[in-house]
């Protein structure tokens, strides 16, 4: 009995370590992996993570090994008597100092990284104001005169200085591969900066519980070449593309005479209410509903049919649109490239 109860426990550390390596290798390729850095600051975090990871693993393996070895070596045996040891001051001082040393080794680069990453952004950083709303993100580029929602575009190789705001509750801005998180606190502006190092599309999500649809409050960051970014900005600065197809033209009428104008902006039209996401160029986005759904006509129709069904608690109510109105609106919104 005794032997059987010890043996499986000896295998557990080996299995766990094996699992650890395999699992971390797969976690590396996940779209929101925290250990797949693609910016200067996440690379700094990664260096620190590797150091702490190995320190933690060594301590854990040491404790685990001691617990198992002692459990096995000193298990009850006929004729064995326990050694009546009350303590050993010298040993206890040593094992108080060992953690102190390990922690000092971790602390120095930690503080160094804190100072580097929380300091001011480098000169010439792109200014972006990110505002959290229940449950979507707004992005303003004050120097460029651009406002958009849920999809943030930045040029590669240039620092981005993000000012973080919230209009309702606390949200948190987090793009795992580009930056660690910082909260968006109402009444208390925060900021963070990072320099993206490779082009690509990055998944992101609100990281502070913010109510019913916290799980659905997502966004994307597009890191583009300088040229692509400039082209994007140039397009964003334009008013909406006036619809040419009949259905889209009718859609604009539905939009401007219905409830839509109460909350949304479409520059070049009378719609100028800044409650919900800016829609001037919604057709060129890859996603809708705070990056919850791919931007397809089907998904747009699904969203318009009943927003709270797609995103529980959505502040956009079910407007009870007719199928005819929905088809026209979809044609219009998809034309807003």
């Amino acid at each position, binding site marked *: 009995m005794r032997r059987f109860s010890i043996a499986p426990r000896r295998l557990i550390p080996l299995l766990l370590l094996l699992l650890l390596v395999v699992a971390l290798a*797969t976690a590396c390729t996940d779209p929101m992996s925290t250990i797949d850095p693609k910016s200067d600051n996440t690379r700094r975090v990664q260096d620190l993570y590797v150091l702490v990871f190995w320190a933690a693993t060594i301590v854990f393996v040491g404790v685990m090994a001691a617990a198992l070895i*002692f459990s096995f070596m000193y298990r009850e045996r006929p004729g064995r008597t326990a050694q009546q*040891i009350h*303590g050993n001051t010298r040993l206890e001082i040593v094992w108080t100092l060992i953690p102190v040393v390990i922690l000092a080794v971790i602390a120095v680069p930690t503080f160094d990284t804190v100072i580097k990453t*929380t300091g001011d952004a480098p000169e010439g950083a792109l200014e972006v104001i990110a505002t959290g709303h229940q449950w979507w993100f707004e992005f303003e580029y004050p120097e460029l005169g651009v406002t958009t929602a849920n999809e943030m575009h930045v040029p590669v190789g240039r620092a981005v200085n993000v000012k973080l705001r919230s209009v309702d509750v606390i949200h948190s801005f987090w793009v795992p591969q580009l930056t660690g998180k910082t*909260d968006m606190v109402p009444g*208390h502006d925060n*900021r963070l900066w990072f320099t993206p190092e490779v082009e690509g599309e990055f998944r992101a999500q609100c990281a502070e519980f913010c109510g*019913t649809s916290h799980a659905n409050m997502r966004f994307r960051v597009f890191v583009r070449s300088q040229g692509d970014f400039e082209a994007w900005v140039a397009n964003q600065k334009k008013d909406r593309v006036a619809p040419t197809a009949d259905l889209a033209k009718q859609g604009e009428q539905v939009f401007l005479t219905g409830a839509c104008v109460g909350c949304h902006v479409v520059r070049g039209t009378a719609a100028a209410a800044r409650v919900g996401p800016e829609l001037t160029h919604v057709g060129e986005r890859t996603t809708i509903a705070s990056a919850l759904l791919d931007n397809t006509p089907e998904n747009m129709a699904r969203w318009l049919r009943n927003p709270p069904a797609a995103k529980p608690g959505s502040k956009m109510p079910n407007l009870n649109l007719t199928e005819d109105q929905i088809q026209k609106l979809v044609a219009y919104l998809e034309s807003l490239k």
Partner: protein
Amino acid sequence: MATTAGTLPAVGAHSGLWSWLTTVDHKRIGALYGVSAMAFFIMGGIEAILIRTQLAVPNGTVLEADRFNQLFTMHALTMIFLGVMPLGAAFFNWFVPLQIGARDVAFPRLNALSYWVFIGGGLLFVSSFIFGGAPNAGWFAYAPLTSERMSPGSGMDFYVVGLLMLGLSSLIAALNFAVTIINMRAPGMTMMRLPVFIWMTLVVAFLLILSLPVLTVALIQLLFDRSFTTHFFSPEEGGNPILWQHLFWVFGHPEVYILILPSFGIISEVLPVFSRKPLFGYAAVVFAGVSIAVLGFAVWSHHMFTTGLGTVPQIVFSASTMAIAVPTGVKIFNWLGTLYGGNIRFTTAMYFAVSVIVLFTIGGVTGVMHATVPVDTQQQDTYFIVAHLHYVLFGGSIMGIFSGVYYWFPKMTGRFLHEGLGKLHFWLFFIGMNLTFFPMHFLGVGGMPRRIYTYDADLGFDTWNMVATIGAYIIAVGMLAFLWNFVRTMRQAPSAPNDPWGGATLEWATSSPPPEHDFDVVPEVHDRDPLWYNRDHGVTTPAAPAHLHIHMPPPSYYPLVLGGALLLMGIGVLSHLAVTALGVVIAIYAVWAWTLEPTD
């Protein structure tokens, strides 16, 4: 037995429902705490199973968003305030008087009051599921999500009133145990001869006394914000939501130690007894416990590293948090030192105790990862934190509490839990919890945020979520094994001798279960391990006199009446203030009658 000052009939029965409602016996109150807390623990477990079932697959459809948010909020509140804390209180009640050689706690009626306020607050909390929805803003309840405008239902009012009641209960108990430990020790039981479990109880008592008032202030401010339009936490009116976070975590971090130190105390009793040797470095273990408590008040902002604290506070709280790893490490090394050179009996209690060393260490080293602020900005609010906290609270607290259950069961009931079923329970818990919580490290590193009711299929979260859910079901089966063991054991006749394990501390000097007055003769203490000293030096307990004339406090129903009055006051805040007024009237009557109640 006494007649009482009130108009109700005198009480004096020793069995039946009435005897339980009026008891002031610390052992019976301990039993009430234990059974109630186990029931709440199972409830919290069911909440966890529902959460895990929803998350087993991407885009799960078992629960709706708001119900899920209620469940993760209530899971935390239930496990912390209604499960683990009162399970600790059950052991404090049972073993503080027995281990220090006292006949009861210093204030037996207050002790009963603390239980009745606890059960009132607990039932109020749970009833929120029926009356308009449970709290759904997380157990941390960050402002301004908790404002009347953002959370218009009654859920957050239940949160405020429930926590105020539970806090009051804990505060009463903490003062009672602190006074008991300081004043009621048997002759020769100096502070540095106190069992480590008693030391940890004392430390927890002071943590509660110092941290709960902060939570109380914050809760009353929140109550005022919600009910009387004050603006402590509402930014649009000049309030500060970050203030709530500071107040909450000044309580909330010491709370972590309130949850873990009882378990540390328990395994510091179990490891030496089954290794058959004294605890290695007693003074260091005690001093480490006290240090953890002191430092525990200086680390709260590590829960707030992402709120924009600024460079200097981040460094300061990072350093203080790393510092707390030192005394924690000392404890772990001393427990390992206790195993070294022993002659170890692997009972179920010992299985659980040894597992605490290993599992808690996992939670400890990941804690150091979070103290590393830049790493924390990636891990904060991800499943990595969920993994970390469950290794601390399940691997540390729960496993330690079950070690105590198996260890002390013969003393509490006179019966042995079945060892085979116990080991089955252990392995199901051990394997189940590792399957549940270890993969959460990978989910966190892979970028899965906490508190999300749904996730996309293309993020690589599906495999480990399924594994975690399977693990949760294995834990549930382990709990069933324990319950079956409990029922089966309680059906048997008592058979346990006074000292079945060769224990070192005073509770093993009296009968199993102990008489109402605990000890026929108050023991005299000559050593840190009094029973081992007596065994080795041939000291025998003096025979009890033929006729015992031991004065014990009489039963009283005023704690129950006062507890009920406080519950009415709470219900009034949630419904109609007239109910609160009624509660106040009854409370005044109860306190009045309480003070005039004869004590002999």
